[in-house]
């Protein structure tokens, strides 16, 4: 259930991370040039931003409820260790809410400078908020800063547990860049569709170029960051890596399989690339990579689920990176934006695909950690609530979420169909 809530919340988080920065960039352009076009874009984007933020507030509130409703034991045992992260996140959220209120309702009411300044805390608190939440997740993957004595966490050092964690950094950078990719491609995709339908004035060109350029640069970089993340996983969560790659036995010079299906300790029907896994994980083609057999069967994650999610993320990520490289290449060699309709079709598709990759990436890290909720320390089954009637609760919430998703689409369509009147005419 929490999975579902997260799947709804995460895309909104991306917008929370990246969108304010983009809106503010456009507003900054407006302040610099006095060109009304930028103001129109910034104001229209603001309306989308506030609608998504409102939904983000709800899903975020629900998530903090669920921490207690679904995982009372997890919170009861480790709340003292990781709770600090959420407390700081709470403050960030607060700042974000306050300044988004000022920013959104302050258009035309505050001086231009004050209005612009009121946007800065939104960007900053979006960053600290994601930082702290990710620090909790990093801690779940690579716990530290406490000792467990007779089922109780003692000797707790919350700062060290959350922010002295080597795992935090790759997760943070990976997620942060993902935020820009998803937001960039989704926003750009909307205008790519507009172009395909024949609307292509200066407004669309500008509104497409800004997010697209960010996403096009961020997506190839994400491949490099992904490699960093995978190597950290190889060092600290070998079983998770083995699940990514469907590596049944501990192997010297382990191969990588592209696609295929894991059964009985090996990947069937996949494209096999010998020794690549050892090389990527340890920079030595003959290095030994731990397989799933390193731990008893009851400590292994559901391999195929993890693998499919991982391959989906990597596959889509690679495609997005290629699209980004293509855009940058055309821009560099020809000095212009690509003009093939296929390119715009690809951009329109890239938005939803990047969302799929995002959710797949999240499934990868969470499912890959199973059966643990805190890696090597607490099992998911131990953390879950003892209250009955959970299926009923699940079903209700699932229904409500379906409604929320539908509502988000409805409002986005509405906002797209009836935008604020443009002040500047198209050139």
């Amino acid at each position, binding site marked *: 259930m929490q999975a579902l809530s997260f799947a709804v919340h995460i895309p909104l988080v991306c917008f929370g991370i990246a969108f304010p920065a983009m809106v503010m960039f456009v507003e900054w352009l407006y302040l*610099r040039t*006095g060109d009304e076009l930028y103001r129109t874009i910034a104001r229209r984007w603001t309306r989308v931003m506030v609608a998504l933020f409102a*939904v983000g*507030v*709800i899903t975020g*509130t*629900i998530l903090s*409820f669920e921490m*207690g*409703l679904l995982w*009372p034991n997890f*919170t*009861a045992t*480790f*709340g003292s260790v990781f*709770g*600090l992260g*959420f*407390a*700081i*996140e*709470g403050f960030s959220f*607060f*700042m974000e*809410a*306050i*300044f988004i*209120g*000022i920013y959104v*309702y*302050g258009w*035309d009411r*505050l001086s231009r400078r004050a209005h612009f300044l009121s946007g800065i805390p939104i960007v900053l608190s979006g960053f600290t908020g994601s930082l702290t939440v990710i620090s909790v997740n990093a801690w779940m993957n690579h716990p530290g800063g406490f000792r467990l004595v007779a089922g109780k*966490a*003692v000797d*707790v050092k919350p*700062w060290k547990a959350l922010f002295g964690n080597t795992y935090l*950094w790759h997760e943070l*950078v990976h997620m942060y860049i993902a935020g820009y990719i998803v937001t960039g491609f989704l926003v750009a995709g909307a205008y790519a569709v507009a172009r395909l339908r024949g609307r292509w004035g200066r407004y669309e*060109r500008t509104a497409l*170029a800004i997010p697209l*350029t*960010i996403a096009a*640069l*961020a997506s190839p*970089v994400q491949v490099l960051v992904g490699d*960093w993340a995978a190597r950290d996983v190889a060092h600290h969560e070998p079983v998770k890596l083995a699940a990514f790659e469907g590596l049944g036995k501990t192997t010297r010079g382990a191969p990588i399989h592209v696609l295929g299906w894991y059964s009985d300790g090996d990947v069937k029907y996949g494209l096999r690339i010998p020794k690549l896994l050892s090389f990527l994980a340890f*920079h030595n083609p003959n290095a030994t990579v731990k397989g799933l057999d390193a731990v008893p069967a009851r400590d292994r994650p559901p391999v195929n689920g993890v693998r499919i999610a991982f391959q989906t993320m990597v596959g889509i990520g690679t495609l997005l990176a290629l699209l980004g490289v293509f855009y*940058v290449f055309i821009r560099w060699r020809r000095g212009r934006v690509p003009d093939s309709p296929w390119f715009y079709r690809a951009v329109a598709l890239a938005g939803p695909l990047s969302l799929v990759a995002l959710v797949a990436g999240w499934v990868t890290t969470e499912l890959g950690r199973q059966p643990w909720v805190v890696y090597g320390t607490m099992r998911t089954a131990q953390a879950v*609530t003892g*209250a009955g*009637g959970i299926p009923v609760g699940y079903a209700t919430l699932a229904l*409500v979420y379906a*409604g*929320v998703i539908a509502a*988000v689409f*409805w409002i986005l369509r*509405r*906002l797209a169909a*009836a935008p604020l009147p443009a002040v500047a005419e198209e050139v």
Partner: protein
Amino acid sequence: MLYALPLVFALIGLALYGVLGAADFGAGFWQLAAGPGKHAERIREHAHKSMAPVWEANHVWLIFVLTVVWTAYPKAFGSIASTLCVALLIAAIGIIFRGAAYALRSGASSLAEQSTIDTAFGISSVIVPFALGAAVGGIASGRVPVGNAAGDLFTSWLNPTSILIGVLAVVTGAYLAAVFLSGDAVRVGDEQLVRDFRARALLSGVVAGAIAIGGLAVLHSDSHALFEELVTGKGLPALIVSVLAGVATMALVWWWRFEPARYTAALAVAAIVAGWALAQSPRLLPGLTVRQAAAPHDTLVAILVAILAGGALLVPALGTLFRLTLRGHLDHAEAEQAPPPHREAQFGEPRHPQLLLRVAAALLIAGFGFTNVADAQWAHVLGGACLLGVVATGFRVALPAL
């Protein structure tokens, strides 16, 4: 003493939520109660517009309370959340609907759509405070034992005390909202709306007072220990403050003094929360004192540091928001500003594209080296920073002339 400090902050948060959040729910209540018609439409519109800039901030208080409690008193939080899960789930769903309604309202184009949304909003505005109040009632009447879902899933929040506090929460919210909205209506300068909300404030104030007094009888029979402490023990001073503040608010509203009434009304609600806390202390749950429930020392210090540092940032920010709101800077009235001086400064190619390009390339190579070739942890972090730099510099180079 350290072990109790986070709880004090959590209670302050709860009191603020009890004032601001409840007023927010109350505004929803009046939207629902406005009924059909053109005049009702204006009431709904006023309630919506007054709350729109602040509602998100009002609700983060709840998140604040939850996170502080689960960090500083994890054991109590686990017990409360699992036993009261039904009530909390209902509240959660209500919150989803409320937030969704806020988000959707800006997209509604026809009045029919808008009033459907307002109805959903209003209904959830009644359900949420009731469910949360009922949950509080469960805790206050000692029906939440320690353990994973150890208490009864239904009677823990469907009992006389819970229902009393739930109903009181709804009515108090309506009362607070009416007082606040009267003040807002004065600012907007709408005579008719002021009269409407003043009448509502007086009416709901009387109802809230009556329920509160009648409620003492309920407490007497249902949670006698709490009643004793509240009426004769540690909770008494708070109870007196609350009654006095409540009466003062009524008087101020009667004399059309809405601005000071805001604060006395808030005080009345905050005093109730304080009274409950005093009456129940040092017991958090049956058989679990605050001291026993508290997290280890380092965690308590950490959360206090986080609260104080966060508060240092938050209080001025929140002050700014409310100041702007109360002065009407965030009202919806159309007031176009003159456009900024047209500077003719075209935003095009960067001044030193070649240099920027080289910086981006250098950062890319450094980032690749540190992140993907090197093995040391510090190198990875540095590499990650370089790669972020690539995106930033590259963005400036690659952004086409707009």
